[in-house]
């Protein structure tokens, strides 16, 4: 773990064909300063009121997002809506267990999201492996690989619990504690090391999304 570097050194984009490197923009994660107090508070308020979820159902948790998105629970009225592209999303809902193959996409999608970005982790599987604690293909703790803002207990957490989680996330954001993006940049090498330990065929750039 390295706390010394706020900006990681250049990591090789190994495994990526030279031709493809041009497709990715050169934007290594870095820490961002907060704006002045009042502006930041206003922005945080707006960030909390407009949560765009990345529409990536990574696990079974996605099934309870459906009712949440639709009429019965209607998350739109809380300013929450799904968004199909990571570039425009601010919230990543990790829907429970993450297989190694999905983790790779999670990391990639997470890095593509623009900060400030927030992660909501659903269910037991994200906390300590859940019922797949002995599976060869699922990770046990998502916080080893990306920073997490809110955990919601349950298997599956019901839509109401999800809503409660989003309300909690809003409180966290308004209080200015939703700093996952900076956390990720600060401990970037640690996260990368963890990710690479699990994702065996690392055929993607380290950060140049």
């Amino acid at each position, binding site marked *: 773990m390295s706390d010394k570097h706020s900006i990681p050194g250049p990591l090789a984009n190994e495994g990526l064909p030279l031709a493809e490197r041009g497709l990715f923009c050169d934007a290594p994660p870095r820490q961002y300063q907060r704006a002045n107090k009042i502006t930041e508070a206003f922005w945080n308020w707006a960030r909390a009121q407009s949560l765009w979820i990345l529409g990536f159902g990574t696990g079974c948790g996605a099934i309870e997002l459906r009712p949440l998105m639709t*009429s*019965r629970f209607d998350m739109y009225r809380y300013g929450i809506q799904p968004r199909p592209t990571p570039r425009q999303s601010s919230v990543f809902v990790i829907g429970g267990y993450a*297989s190694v193959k999905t983790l790779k996409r999670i990391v990639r999608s997470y890095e593509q999201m623009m900060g400030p970005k927030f992660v909501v982790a659903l269910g037991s599987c994200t906390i300590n492996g859940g019922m797949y604690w002995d599976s060869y293909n699922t990770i046990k703790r998502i916080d080893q690989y990306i920073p997490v803002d809110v955990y919601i207990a349950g298997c599956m957490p019901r839509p109401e619990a999800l809503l409660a989680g989003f309300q909690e996330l809003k409180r966290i954001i308004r209080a200015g504690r939703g700093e996952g993006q900076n956390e990720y940049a600060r401990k970037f090498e640690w996260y990368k090391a963890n990710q690479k330990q699990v994702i065996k065929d690392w055929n993607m750039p380290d950060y140049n999304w």
Partner: protein
Amino acid sequence: MSRAKAPYIAPAERAAPDLDSGKYLVMWQGPNHPGITGNMSLRLVIEGDSVVDCETHVGYLHRGFEKLMERRLWMQNFPLVCRIAVPEPDFNEYCYAAALEELAGIEVPDKAVWLRTLSLEMIRLASFLMWIGGQAGAFGHGTIAQWSVTMRDYVLDLFEELTGGRIYHMYIIPGGVRGDVPAGFLRRVLETMDTVRKNLDDIELVMFHNVVYKMRAQGLGYIPPDWVDQYGITGPNARAAGLPRDLRKDLGYLAYPRLSFEPIVGTVSDAFERSRLRLLEMYQSIDLIRQIVDMLPARGAFRAKLPNPLHWKIPAGETYVAAECTRGEYGFYVVSDGGDKPRRVAVRGPSYTHGVALMERLARGVNIADVAGLMVSLHTYPPEIER
């Protein structure tokens, strides 16, 4: 509408497009994509606006169920199996429980048989309701998705009341079920069925008498009848092609032989016909649920006595238990070596054939815009492909 017969091409014979020619674009649909069912992906090679080649990539949800089951006691697998197909956990529970009962020679009380049938029919309805939302949504009709998912939620309310769980019911336990119906439950079932039925009427009107939906769905993903056996197609996908194959009738498991229903058969298995057929099956499920509510025995044991689950050993043997789920033949192949853990449990999900081999074949020549609709019209759930 062109509903032409496509010639059979074995996957081995597929012509691999020359990607270096510059004619083609490789595009991934999924896993992070709203137009994909669950967490899987399609690697599409496209030329202009149509798909030249399609490869299904699965494994994003692979948890190694079959391996994990070999590590767990017979009873401990009971909470595990329902996770294999998230929208329809009950079929897993039933197949697993029935396989164990067969191997161990356990007689299930009649009441449990009825309650199992009830829960299977209810989840069939719920799953179809979610599916129809997906199907409409895949063609851009979000309104129907909003309605139908709500209707599904009403059915899930019933499940919550009966089983204590919304998504994972864990109700059909080896030996029977886990509880009797609560007071007033059956009345609420009937009320909910009325609500759902009313809403289905609306959906029928809006979705199936819709010029745009017809333009999109008719002729899309046509499955010739002779593909059914070739590709191992089951369920509504096969029935839409005119084959009256319904395991509820063919195997006559649970209380189905005592219920009156006929398999619903279509004429031309394309996306439209398949979705219409599933709509009819929803009506059929509502009807079956009403019949079950009428015929459910008022009293009686709901569970057979089982040995101590902590060291339950099941005599050596093997069995394959199949049930008709919303997508077709859902089966558990269970092998016991006489120990307290399964030797092997293999899960046969209908999506396995529909989502991989069939999808890859059907996607060829389809417009990219239709890929999502085609995928949904085959009704695939990736977790049962990769387990």
